[in-house]
């Protein structure tokens, strides 16, 4: 069978594309399935590259700008590669009331990137979330999807020590 001409060369022969193809097939290439497909694509590739978005757009027969609009509307989707590990500090109301702000500041200092960024060595993405729904553990955070709480700035830094180089000096 001839290769699908819509597959951009960078993605060609990438086995992860099969996962995305399967999802689109399962959802019968319905344009409505865009968000589901983007979820699958991000899970498979870790992030949504332009090439991947263009491919999805062509397969679902959607305008590229519409696909881009959807991918950038939702905060779960990311268009840049993420770090090997992820640490997400909850900044929901209960966590905020109990001092999540200080934890974020301290972690930013310790790993040298702002929340929402990835360390230069690609080891860690530091992020915040608007409530992870573990309010009784406030202030809480997750590291690679494992829930920890209640935390202090110090205990949070300690937890990252094994994953990434941390600076102990306070700014």
């Amino acid at each position, binding site marked *: 069978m001839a290769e699908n001409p819509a597959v951009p060369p960078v993605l060609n022969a990438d086995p992860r594309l099969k996962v995305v193809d399967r999802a689109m097939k399962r959802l019968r290439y319905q344009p409505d399935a865009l968000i589901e497909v983007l979820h699958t694509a991000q899970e498979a590739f870790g992030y949504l590259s332009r090439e991947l978005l263009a491919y999805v757009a062509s397969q679902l027969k959607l305008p590229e*700008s519409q696909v*881009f*609009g959807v991918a950038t509307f939702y905060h779960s989707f990311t268009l840049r590669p993420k770090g090997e590990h992820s640490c997400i500090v909850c900044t929901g109301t209960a966590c905020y009331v109990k001092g999540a702000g200080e934890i974020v500041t301290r972690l930013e200092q310790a790993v040298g990137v702002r929340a929402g960024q990835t360390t230069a060595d690609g080891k860690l993405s530091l992020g915040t979330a608007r409530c992870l729904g573990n309010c009784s553990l406030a202030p809480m955070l997750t590291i690679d999807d494992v829930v920890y709480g209640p935390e202090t700035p110090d205990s949070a830094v300690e937890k990252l020590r094994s994953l990434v180089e941390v600076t102990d000096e306070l700014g």
Partner: protein
Amino acid sequence: MAAITLTINNELIGARQGQTILDVARERGIDIPTLCHLEGLEEVGGCRLCLVELQGSPRPVPACVTKAAEGMEITTHSDKLVEYRKMLVELLLAERTHTCSICVQNGNCELQTLAAKLGIDHVRFDYLHQQLPMDASRERFALDHNRCVLCLRCVRVCDAVEGAHTWDVRGRGSTSRIVADLDRPWGGSTSCTDCGKCVQLCPTGALFRKGATVGEMIKERGFLNRILERRRLAAQRRSA
């Protein structure tokens, strides 16, 4: 079509079933300001300038999409509404960097005219001065995000009339921005047909023809209804 009667600004007015409050008011020469609305395009109801007070409704309703109904009592220019409209346009003027004095659209701009009409002689809110790019990569046209009011006329006309759907919106909230294709420079867009419809419908100097200097751009909107009318007639002929 069934006739209905409603009251606008204490005056009894006859209207046809299916007309919006805006249609009825404009027929009567009542001037309700609008920005995102443009006859011929699907309504979005985003600018909120056409809000009117409807007896019995806890909040004002947008005249552009609210259908006139029997017995409605409507106020179009209460002190509160006038003040709200002023604030809304002030917010728009503060959101991006409109600097009228150095705009190709100066003197021919819907936003500028609206502001003057609503009695705005200064903006009480902080100018946000977001540093946004200008995309002049297309041969004939350019896009200056600093002057965009996100009325989405370009998005709508490109999708529904031209059928290209080159434009859409990226991001959300205050980071919303018009994008071509996958947020590529407009010059590299493969879907754009260079038809220029978006440029003509843009109410401000966000989309403009290259070569126009300050105050030179005059936009021509009449094409929209002409095209739509011709399409309707053509479709009639085909089905006949």
